[in-house]
């Protein structure tokens, strides 16, 4: 089947969206951005293709009743698939780690280190099925995050037991993860799906009796090729994407169109991403009328919250809930990202409470966004908030307050998938381009296609 791909290469994460010919989202994929953009891009795309497979399965079985059973089965299949994927990457990581063990640094320890690595990876493999069990919770779905935190824990224990230096083990890992991450994904997806099916069939994960006919239908459906009809790239890393120029669209246009697709009545979009804050005005077709974004300075963008989280030794997702506990937000004027740590320590030294400081910081970010919004032409009904920061409840609370104070009653849309807004717009541009609809595609292709 034909698919249309949008890839948003952001400073923090890379997102991909797959649309079908009807313009429905069939797959979403996300991964952490990394030094090799091509890899980040193909990983995100592959993730979206995996997601699309499951959408197709669900569609195929959707109309046949027995919903709960199918759901359980597909959930099992997905977990098994993720486990297969994890094990494969783990294998790659292990090989890479072993290859790092050479040279003077290891002297006579090389064999011992290799032995220790073997043990660490055995333990990792041993606990892997439980990590992908039915009720398991993972803090992140990125391989780097999962494998990293578990490796460190096991390596510390194994190193101690073997009387080896932990630093040595750490060093081997640090070098290897970068190499592994920047290698394009290997192995066939279908292969992994078939392994996952075998796993489900063997009752490895599922308690349910898997129906042989179902398995063979799924297996048959894997033969449907997800043809990549047109790809459009966007995001700050877009120029580095291995696409011809006409396949690259500005993230401002993609965000405008993506927001329009999620909420067709959208007229104003605010996107707070890793390094940009954008205020975008669009018309009833999702066409950008005007925009403003932060200039040379990245004060008050998503990265600011990242620094704050690091400074406070907290997870990014923990900042919002803590800020919500405040009833007396600190007054903070500067949102300079570089000074964020200094500002924070200063406040703490003055005896201010962490939750109050955090609440103040969230307000400061939103105040800066309000300035960008007003420069772009204000806020019109409906208003759609996108980007990673839209997931932060404390930021959203401040935004609602300030929008209502400044612009009165406005419908505020926040989509749970808002992080995919740019990729969605890109995918729709791709779909239109392939259809020969030229709204928003470069003139030369437009004319080429029409003439």
């Amino acid at each position, binding site marked *: 089947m034909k698919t249309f791909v949008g890839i948003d290469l952001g400073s923090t994460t890379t997102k991909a969206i797959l649309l079908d010919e009807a313009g429905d989202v069939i797959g979403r994929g996300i991964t952490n951005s990394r030094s090799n953009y091509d890899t980040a891009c193909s990983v995100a795309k592959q993730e979206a293709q995996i997601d699309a497979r499951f959408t197709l399965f669900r569609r195929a079985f959707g109309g046949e009743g027995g919903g709960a059973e199918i759901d359980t089965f597909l959930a099992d299949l997905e977990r098994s698939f993720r486990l297969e994927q994890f094990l494969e990457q783990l294998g790659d990581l292990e090989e890479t780690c072993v290859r790092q063990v050479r040279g003077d640094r290891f002297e006579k320890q090389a064999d011992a280190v290799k032995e220790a690595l073997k043990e660490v990876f055995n333990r990792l493999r041993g606990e892997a099925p439980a990590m992908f069990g039915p009720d398991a919770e993972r803090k992140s779905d990125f391989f780097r995050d999962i494998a990293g935190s578990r490796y460190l824990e096991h390596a510390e224990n194994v190193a101690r037991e073997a009387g080896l230096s932990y630093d040595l083990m750490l060093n081997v890992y640090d070098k290897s993860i970068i190499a592994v991450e920047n290698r394009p994904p290997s192995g066939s997806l279908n292969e992994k799906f078939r392994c996952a099916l075998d796993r489900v069939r063997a009752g490895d994960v599922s308690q349910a009796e898997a129906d042989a006919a179902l398995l063979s239908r799924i297996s048959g459906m894997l033969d449907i090729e997800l043809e990549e009809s047109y790809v459009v790239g966007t995001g700050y890393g877009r120029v580095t994407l291995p696409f011809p120029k006409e396949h690259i669209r500005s993230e401002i246009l993609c965000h405008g169109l993506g927001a329009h697709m999620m909420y067709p009545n959208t007229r104003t979009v605010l996107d707070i991403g890793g390094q940009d804050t954008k205020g975008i005005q669009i018309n009833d077709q999702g066409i950008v009328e005007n925009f403003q974004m932060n*200039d040379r300075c990245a004060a008050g963008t998503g990265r600011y919250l990242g620094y704050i989280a690091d400074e406070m030794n907290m997870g990014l997702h923990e900042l919002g809930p803590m800020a919500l506990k405040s009833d007396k937000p600190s007054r903070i004027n500067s949102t300079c990202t570089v000074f964020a740590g200094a500002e924070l320590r200063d406040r703490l030294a003055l005896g201010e409470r962490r939750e109050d400081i955090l609440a103040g910081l969230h307000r400061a970010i939103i105040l800066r966004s309000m300035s960008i919004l007003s420069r772009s032409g204000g806020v019109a009904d409906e208003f759609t908030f996108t980007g990673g920061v839209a997931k932060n409840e404390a930021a959203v609370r401040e935004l609602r307050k300030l929008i209502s104070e400044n612009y009165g009653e406005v419908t505020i849309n926040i989509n749970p998938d808002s992080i995919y807004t740019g990729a969605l717009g890109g995918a729709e541009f791709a779909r239109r381009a392939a259809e020969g609809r030229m709204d928003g595609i470069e003139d030369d292709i437009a004319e080429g296609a029409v003439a």
Partner: protein
Amino acid sequence: MTAKPKSPAAEVQKDDSMLLQKAMMAKHYDRLANAKENGEKVASTFVPGNLNELLMCFDLVNNLPEVNAIQSGLRRQSGGYIMEAERSGHSEDVCTYVKSDIGMMAKGNIGPNGRKLPDPDVLMLSYTGCFTFMKWFELLREQYKCETIFLQTPYLADGKVTPNMVQYMVKQFKEDVIPKLEKVSGVKFDIDRLREYLKKSAKAEDDLVHVLQSAKNKPSPIDAYFGGIYYIGPIFGAFRGTDDAIDYYRFLRQEVDDRVAKGLGPVTPDGVMQEEKYRLVVEGPPNYTSFRQFWKMFYEEGATVVASSYTKVGGTYDFGFRHDPDRPLETLAEYCLGVYTNRSLPMRIEMLVNYINEYEADGLLINSIKSCNSFSAGQLLIMREVEKRTGKPAAFIETDLVDPRYFSAANVKNRLESYFQMVEQKRSGAKKETAA
């Protein structure tokens, strides 16, 4: 106002008029460097409200600190000069022309030809709307302890030149400016000499306007912003009222007419622009520290600037004003009153709207200069109003004149590309509507 001289990048394309212009500028800098040796006296003055014809009546050589700052920017010297000025106490937000100039003085006042610029004998401050000029010359007066003449040009707050304004300025010429220039130079004022120069100015001005308006052609044979900066160099500087200027503009006009006849686009550093995809009107000065890189962001995308407000800071000629030898002092007053920096916000809006319509542009782009409050104040309002009146999309980018720290290439490119795609999208949206 030329690009780097003797650039090692031999492949950089320039048309003959650019080479001629470069030679003229070089000649002028040599004249400045030799001034003391040759017994010539020097007047420092500004581009907006530059009274070159009057200064020539007193055998004074015209030195323009702004142009020196631009030269320092193009030669990548300004960054160091600005830091030097900041060390001596000038804050980060001060106009970077000023800081580049102050820093250059502190480092020996070496001009673009590698030779020392002369100390001025007189500071001729024609105040034309930029408040910073006064402070700048206050600093220079402190440095050089020389005669400072302050000509006050009334601001065109109501959008028109009144007889009172002209009289007020003529009175200043007669009672203050001319007597002081006579004293400094030791040359007696001769109004017929002034008339002669003014006649020459008008001649060159005709050709300049012809060149600027050639951008109404499709494709435009010139870029009226990046290329425009070369074109305005002589007439905004020390050549207005000279035979050299007449020759240059005649030559330029011929060259541009040739390009029109051949249907050619503007000459960019990478050769003749092939396809004109976007026609823009630009408001605000350019960035000089990354001038070529900035320009490239336009021509690579097929964007030509067909009209710009910046090329009117040293005089607005395209709405009919010419220096008039029959009313020598009055005409100098009217010239000062009409320069772009002295125009009110509604006048600027009017002008930009007019350009978008007359030159059939796709929209307005504002390059907002971080350290120039004179230009930047009100620019967002200008943008909204122009958008409203023309229905054409506008965009806003932010850079600086000569402070390299305020040019973020990735950011500017991102916005420019978004803008070009936005123009494209709106255009095809409009096509669809027409088709429907």
